[in-house]
């Protein structure tokens, strides 16, 4: 079956690992991911003031394209994109002023006919018809753990993985509503479904430092360090993330972290879809492990998951 998928700009260039592993994994589940034609950046941040309505135009544009291609659901793996799309969707559904203004902005937008690939400008107001789901939600609610387990080809033998939720996936609860902000289970349940042992640790929803790691690195270094340290101390062999920014802060910046916190031994960071893909039998080359700053190859050892089931 075909499913609309919004990768987000970062996945196409800097973290292709997340994109490719997602596609391959979903293919094993007989789901073909289809990107909306001519999609553009979602804007990365949901505008938090009532007046920044133009900031909703980019995400709504994406959603409108999905709708016009006949999709009623769009999944995404990047937590930032997920937050923006979902909240923009809700805003258009619930706030009449935002609905009116955003649609007014978009009316002159160039639309692309998915069949003929021609540029047209026919436009119908977007009213929030599409449902935005994070892949974790989609796997939990629409695919379901039993079906995933049926398709497993490799046994991860209870690899101790710490799920890192970060901030965007769960908060603000009223808008995101994926799970309880302080006692969530969705990521843990996913890890257990694919054969890992989910590690419980105190920093799973604490902020990694986000974009402050660029504007004031020192502040973010400590935040990221505490997350990594907490996961390690709880016995995790790896940390699983759902967001390229978390990946950047926790993986790429581990060198910088080690410079400040000298006794930190380090811990590999992986994307949840890499674990899923590996468990579903995808080849190692397709997991994008070259993009990792902290080597994660050791986790995807053929010897480890050697029982290839037919």
């Amino acid at each position: 079956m075909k499913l609309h998928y919004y990768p987000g700009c970062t996945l196409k260039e800097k973290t292709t690992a997340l994109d490719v592993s997602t596609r391959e994994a979903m293919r094993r589940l007989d789901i073909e991911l289809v990107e909306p034609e001519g999609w553009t950046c979602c804007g990365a941040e949901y505008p938090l003031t009532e007046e920044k309505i133009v900031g909703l135009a980019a995400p709504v544009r994406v959603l409108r394209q999905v709708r016009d291609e006949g999709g009623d659901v769009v999944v995404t793996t990047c937590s930032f994109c997920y937050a923006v799309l979902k909240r923009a969707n809700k805003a258009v559904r619930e706030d009449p002023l935002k609905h009116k203004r955003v649609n007014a902005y978009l009316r002159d937008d160039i639309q692309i006919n998915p069949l003929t690939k021609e540029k047209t400008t026919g436009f119908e107001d977007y009213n929030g018809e599409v449902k935005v789901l994070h892949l974790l939600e989609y796997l939990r609610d629409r695919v379901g753990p039993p079906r995933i387990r049926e398709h497993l080809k490799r046994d991860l033998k209870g690899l101790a993985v710490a799920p890192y939720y970060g901030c965007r996936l769960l908060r603000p609860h009223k808008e995101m509503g994926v799970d309880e902000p302080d006692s969530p289970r969705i990521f843990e349940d996913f890890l257990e479904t694919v054969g890992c042992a989910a590690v419980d640790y105190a920093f799973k929803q604490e902020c990694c430092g986000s974009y402050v790691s660029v504007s004031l690195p020192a502040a973010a270094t400590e935040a990221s360090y505490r997350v990594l340290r907490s996961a390690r101390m709880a016995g995790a062999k790896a940390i699983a993330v759902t967001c390229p920014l978390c990946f950047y802060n926790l993986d790429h910046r581990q060198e910088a972290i080690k410079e400040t916190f000298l006794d930190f031994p380090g811990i590999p960071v992986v994307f949840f879809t890499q674990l899923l893909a590996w468990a579903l039998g995808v080849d190692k080359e397709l997991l994008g492990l070259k993009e990792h700053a902290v080597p994660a190859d050791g986790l995807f050892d053929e010897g480890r998951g050697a029982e290839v089931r037919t």
Partner: protein
Amino acid sequence: MTAKTTKKKDKRIGLFVCHCGVNIASVVDVEKVAEALKEYPGVTFSTDYVYMCSDPGQQMIIDTIKEKHLDGIIVAACSPTLHEKTFQEAARLAGLNPYQIEIANIREQDSWVHTDREKATRKAVRIVKSHVEKALRNENLEPIKVDVKKRALIIGGGISGLQAALDIAEHGYEVILVEKNPSIGGKMIQLSETFPTLDCSQCILTPKMVEVSRHPRIKLLTYHEVDSISGFVGNFKVRIKKKPRYVDESLCNLCGECEKVCPQIVPDEFNMGLSFRKAVYLPFPQAIPGTYTLDEAHCLGLSPVRCGKCKDVCDKMAIDYDMKETFFEEEVGAVVVATGYDLYTMQALGEYGGEKYEDVVNGLEFERILSASGPTGGVVLRPSDGKVPKSVVFVQCSGSRDTEKHNPYCSKICCMYTAKHAMLYKHRVPDGQATVFYIDVRTGGKGFDEFYQRAVEEDKILYIRGKVSKIFKEGDKLVVWGVDTLTGKKVEVEADLVVLAMAMVKADGVQDLLKKLKVSTDIHGFVAEAHPKLRPVESLNAGFYLAGCAHGPKDIPEAVAQASAAAAKVGDLFAQNELVHEPTVVPVNDELCSGCGICITMCPYGARSLDPERGVAVVNEILCEGCGACAAACPSGAAQQRNQTDDQIFSMLRAMLRE
């Protein structure tokens, strides 16, 4: 559609229009109103006066009734909620039936809400005319009288229930006290010391417990539950369930041999799960009645085939596996609801670990740790490894004052008991560090603020103003993330033990009972009082009184005061030999009633029911409060309120609209 009430055209109505000083007269031209009504059909006498409610005003009414042989009067004045009774009494003194009095409200409904004198005066005339029409159709009514059974039922054997029981019994009345647990004592018996005196809780409570158990007029029923209740104020029938204890109280001598041999181990609820008991157990040493109880839910099978060890060793042959649940009925005149409270569950606070961490405890658990009869013998040890905690953090406002996810109200007692806990900890572990995180410190009672200052100044407890954001475990220490808003510093405290002041919430498992009793509760599940300011110990449902934390968070002195107040109110009720009830109820006209049952569902007081044999509705006049909901809903007009029939209302409308 409506039966016509007879308009008595030759009735002699007197009208008295009140100035109410300037309250009415400054807007409404009262003399003009009196004048305008002089010639109105039915009005025999019409006048105005400065203050009708004053002595001379009332005397005027009495004299005029007698002189002019009036058989109905209208007082055009303030709202009837204020002086209707005053004028009814005046009429009665003059020999007129009090229900021939009409109060025309020309103050709250006219002079207080309008400014245009001309229009307000014309409105007043219309209002008065409508009341004349009603008065012409009023009938003489007699108050309804009913007997009072002078026996009280008290539900709940905690401090409030015990106090109420003692007070009512001392008045000379019989009391039945029903407690669902094997022993009385409630939560107070679990406490270690009480603020602000640091009295040993058990030492001050057990004398009351003993007094209740020995009182000749108190029937103590422990391990019983109220199953259902029917009837009305002064005349309740209560169905009580006696749960099988499997131990004969009169034979058990507390030798304890059964406990020694019982193989089943159960978390001890008295010690908040911090220790274990057996399936056959004594809840605590001073339990009343002093008898063992066999907990059916945890017994291996109540039969010698499955186990039978306890029965074997019982010299007194007190253990009987064949006991059954039995039911019986009692008649009472009043019910006092004193069902207590529970603490908000820690599971709701995921940011504090939910219930994951053994060393994060709530207030009652800490009381048991402090208690000399508790699981650690009064030595402060932490649950996980039994070590003495050198750093204890106390977190106030856990789950309270939170409009977003938890309970919006303030739980009232936490500030005081946290100070107490911190003090007692420091007394026992003098080199320990006690830190309290607070938002405010509320110490309104007598000696309370002084007590709190003692904690800070003498026991050197560190109070940090900031609400804790997160508690988690690192190694074998708990890390507490807080903030000091007063110096603007984010702080982190390492603790060996954390005590959360969890909010007091409604008692578990009591909601169904309250529904059966038709005692209304507020949005938080606490029993609702009749009026928040002036009627704090009665329910709106006549005959039901409330006391203690069932009504809302409060401390022991307040609970005791409330219990005694409830007892006094019960005394008010029992002091009467007959109950008098307003006769302005809604009877059923059998001939018009089709038995549709709509009125029964409408009644908020449970006053109406269906007579299955005759197929018509019947009303229990004592329970009827005359709200009129049934009368409004009745499709056939069979339900007509006395002295407020549909016909009367329509006649009032016609009078108002005629201008």
